């Protein structure tokens, strides 16, 4: 009874806030069908581009980069932590399924980005070890290590919620997000082992495969 009441309160609180403040809708990407050669974006970023975040990250190869260095390519991005033995392999497997199902242009261009929640444990070296373990091509797959504030920030724009529930263990939303070449969120897959077709369809469209 008490639990039910609590749930009711929560829904009320959540729904009120949601009603008061509809989620700003991302403009759907322009139809790509008529575009022969995909346009390489330039100039000012769209207002909802996550590439406006100014944070600096270290890759598994110890390169210092900003998120806008991915500009120009479609990006499949997730947040994860390496010491999670269950969700981590599954989410990488889901990303590999996307890579495999993508059309030829998409497969060539798409970048796969994994941002860790756990900068203490998932050092660049540890991330490099993960890349090797999962046999990922470092030209396409980038692991990112950043400070806690930067991680919190990027999680907030990807709508990933997470909490460190004990030392090195994180409770988090499993979300695979497709960013268009300007860093605007396009399609998401929520949860693990979900159908990938809608995301792959968007990806192919962005890359000029369909």
């Amino acid at each position, binding site marked *: 009874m008490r639990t039910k009441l609590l749930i009711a309160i929560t829904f009320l609180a959540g729904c009120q*806030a949601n009603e008061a*403040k509809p989620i700003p809708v991302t403009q759907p990407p322009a139809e790509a069908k008529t575009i022969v050669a995909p346009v390489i974006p330039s100039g000012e970023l769209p207002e909802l581009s996550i590439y406006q975040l100014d944070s600096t990250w270290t890759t598994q190869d110890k390169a210092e980069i900003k998120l806008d260095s991915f500009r120009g390519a479609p990006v499949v991005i997730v947040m994860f932590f390496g010491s999670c033995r269950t969700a981590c392999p599954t989410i990488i497997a889901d990303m590999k399924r996307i890579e495999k199902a993508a059309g030829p242009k998409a497969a060539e261009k798409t970048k796969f980005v994994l941002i860790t929640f756990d900068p203490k444990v998932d050092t660049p070296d540890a991330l490099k070890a993960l890349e090797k373990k999962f046999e990922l091509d470092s030209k396409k797959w980038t692991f990112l290590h950043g400070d806690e504030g930067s991680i*919190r*920030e990027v999680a*907030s724009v990807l709508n990933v919620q997470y909490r460190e529930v004990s030392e090195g263990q*994180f*409770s988090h939303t499993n979300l695979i997000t497709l960013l268009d070449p300007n860093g605007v969120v396009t399609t998401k897959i929520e949860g693990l082992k979900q159908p990938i077709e809608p995301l792959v369809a968007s990806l192919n469209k962005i890359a000029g495969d369909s």
Partner: protein
Amino acid sequence: MRYWLIIIGLTLNSVAFAAAPERVRIKGDSYAPFYPGADKEEQLVEDFEMDTFPVTNAKFLAFVNANPKWQRGAVKALFADASYLENWPSPSSVVGIENQPVTHVSWFAARAFCDAQGGRLPTEHEWEFVSRADETRVNATGDLAFNQKVLTFYSKPGSGHIDNINQTPANYWGLHDLYGLVWEWVEDFNSSIISSDNRQSGDKQESKFCGGAALSAANTREYATFMRFAFRSSLKSSYTLHNLGFRCAYDIKSE
């Protein structure tokens, strides 16, 4: 020194306000958080400092003037939605609402403000730790009357009007207005999922939203606390709400 100048600048406010320090030091301790960790009941909160009052429109205007990219109309949609500072008479005026808590600010804007003061947003643990106090006790959450008072505030329908700061007496720590005026941003507002973790793959809705959270709360009597967690979990970092403000926290510099 700077603080006193600001306070002198706000001479029309009450005597009690002028006498209150700009920020207070919080002596950290272990506490039992609303959501206990997986392997521990207690969470350590380190010593820190916190603003005595929520940030006012006047202070936020000074920040905006110094940082024009945070002006209403100039901010990009990723960082603040369309109602950002919409209650201000103009993008560069807060006439008549100087001493009200600033609201209609996004998480990004609140963060940028605190950063400019050499501070940061408080963590959820820090905010929850200090908000357990009433005027005399570090932790009053076991007291039904205290919980009822907080709930009464949370159940007030938002009329749009917000009073000036310094409406409530200082709590044990010397902090005012943690309850009664506005909700406040915390740094990790987007951590409020959820008992279901990465290992669970059951009902997505239940694991992602409210129900899952209810089942893991440590003390189901703390409805008020629960409402804060529910509220936070409904936010996005670009949201700007008419009843959501913030105050800053500061690390203690080692001497």
